[in-house]
């Protein structure tokens, strides 16, 4: 039995439909990440599951029960908000206990659960403090702790790391991954616009675009077999190069796509000739932006440091089996193909 199931779910605000025909089934214990550009509807979808927004059409099941008209607190979910949303006037203990008090648990049971969650997150020493006496990372732990005490079937995260600085973000990400391993059987739904978070945390990723599901799959599936040009462009950093015009037309498709890390750059020979427009040196990698004579702008990623300079004439060559082909609707045509030499009509 699926832990969370959405059947033809739709959502409109007034006359504007923001989610169209969402069908999705989440397994018990799975870590699912909703990812997509801002405005794609991922947060709305999470809020529908939480019950903070009404479902306009379709049905939502949690543990086999239709919860369309069930109150958020009765759905067996917990939510961690972007701004932490701690109660500023309560200390950490009361923040974590508040939901349990509302559920009329015994004082003893509340105390046990709060201390257990605090121990899990190593925040026992802050239980008497007010949120404003804590650092951003500590507040985030309290917010997670508050969600844990409710012992939810489904854990919802709404961009929980976006208010943290870069270093803390990595630490907290690892912590959330560890938490998921510890809380076996708890389904986690996590919304982010950061694809690195999505790739590192998820068992499966749901890519949303303009209110529709583009693709559902494991991180590597999305990377290797994107179901659409949108997914191909969204997953992977730097983003995939797309080539349109005569070259893909000759192969009978609308566009070719190749990832920067799948390109080799040479001064002497290769498939696409061009001029270096810009070189970005990151130390570990070098990004070389090349204006090609025939195929527009192409970005290549080379490991280590390279001596290319703007103005140099270079050749860019895709590796074996790294070219994705898309038709006019943005759908992939066959699997990835290609190599140093164009393989016209190899289908």
């Amino acid at each position, binding site marked *: 039995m699926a832990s969370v199931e959405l059947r033809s779910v739709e959502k409109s605000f007034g006359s504007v439909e923001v989610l169209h025909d969402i069908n999705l089934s989440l397994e018990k214990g799975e870590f699912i990440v909703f990812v997509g550009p801002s405005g794609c509807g991922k947060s709305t979808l999470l809020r529908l599951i939480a019950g903070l927004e009404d479902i306009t059409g379709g049905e939502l099941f949690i543990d086999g029960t239709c919860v369309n008209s069930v109150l958020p607190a009765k759905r067996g979910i917990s939510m961690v908000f972007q701004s932490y949303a701690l109660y500023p006037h309560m200390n950490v203990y009361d923040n974590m206990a508040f939901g349990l008090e509302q*559920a009329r648990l015994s004082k003893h049971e509340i105390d046990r659960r709060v201390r257990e969650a605090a121990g899990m997150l190593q925040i026992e020493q802050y239980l008497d403090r007010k949120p404003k006496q804590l650092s951003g990372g500590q507040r985030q732990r309290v917010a997670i702790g508050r969600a844990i005490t409710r012992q939810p079937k489904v854990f919802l995260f709404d961009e929980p790391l976006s208010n943290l600085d870069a270093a803390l973000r990595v630490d907290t990400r690892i912590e959330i991954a560890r938490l998921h391993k510890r809380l076996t059987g708890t389904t986690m739904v996590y919304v982010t616009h950061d694809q690195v978070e999505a790739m590192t945390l998820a068992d499966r990723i749901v890519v949303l675009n303009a209110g529709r599901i583009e693709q559902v799959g494991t991180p590597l599936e999305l990377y290797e077999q994107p179901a659409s040009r949108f997914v191909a462009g969204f997953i992977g950093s730097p983003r995939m190069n797309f080539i349109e015009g005569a070259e893909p037309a000759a192969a009978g498709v609308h566009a070719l796509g190749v990832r920067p890390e799948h390109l080799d750059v040479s001064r002497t020979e290769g498939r696409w000739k061009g001029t270096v427009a810009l070189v970005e040196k990151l130390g570990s990698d070098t990004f070389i932006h090349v204006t090609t004579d025939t195929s527009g702008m192409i970005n290549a990623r080379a490991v280590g440091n390279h001596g290319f300079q703007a103005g140099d004439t270079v050749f860019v060559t895709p590796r074996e089996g790294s070219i994705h082909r898309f038709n006019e609707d943005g759908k992939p045509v066959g699997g990835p193909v290609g190599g140093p030499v164009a393989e016209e009509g190899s289908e």
Partner: protein
Amino acid sequence: MTFPGWIKTSAFYALVSAIVLQAVFPFYYAILTSLESGQSIFDVNYLPQAASLANYWAMISDGVFGKQILNSVFVATVVVFISLFLAVTAAYALSRIRFRGRGLLLLTILSVSMFPQIAVLSGLFEVIRAFGLFNSLWSLVFSYMIFTLPFTVWVLTTFMRKLPVEIEEAAIVDGASSFTIIWRIFLPLMWPAMVTTGLLAFIHAWNEFLFALTFLSTDSQRTVPVAIALISGLSEFEIPWGNIMAASVIVTLPLVVLVLIFQRKIVSGLTAGAVKG
């Protein structure tokens, strides 16, 4: 046309002095008069000449005036508590819950706050007599709702809109009812706004004159503004100015002190209440 710096500076400070002088002088002069006694009141003095508490003693030993102060305190306090209680729940509904007719309701409340009190005077007089509240302090508690309630609702609504949405949603996920959200989550966050709004409503009720003049008929029931307005001597030429000034200082000093303590909060409350375009 440019002036040397020192002329500009002196002109500026002259302006500042004029502003301070006009603001402070009448109250200063009232205190000065209240400290004089007997015939010396009728000599114009610019600096204190006496420090006699005879006028104050006369007012306090009067007995009725003390009762009248208590009347004012009672009415203003009860009015503040009732209107805050009604307003805080109403403001939550108006600021946090989407429902049909909310905009119209807000407009209605705003227009009631601009109501001319005289427009309801005769109808209110009938209601108060029908309830048997004539010459009772409860008539004022009831009628003052016409201005304190719209004002408090409006200011608290403005304030509550600014409270973060996610905190409320966290409480909803935690299973808190709307009532719990107000009392356990929002109220503790709102006490500065409550204090400011309550203080402004208190001052308004404390100063009210028209209803107090109309709905109370005996001396011992009156509130202080009416009492002061009606202090009179035996004839036009025997108006006890010293007593009037002493009474004025007694009822004003606490207000001035409160306003000076809370001046920053009051300014923000007034702007929230009035400038909302």
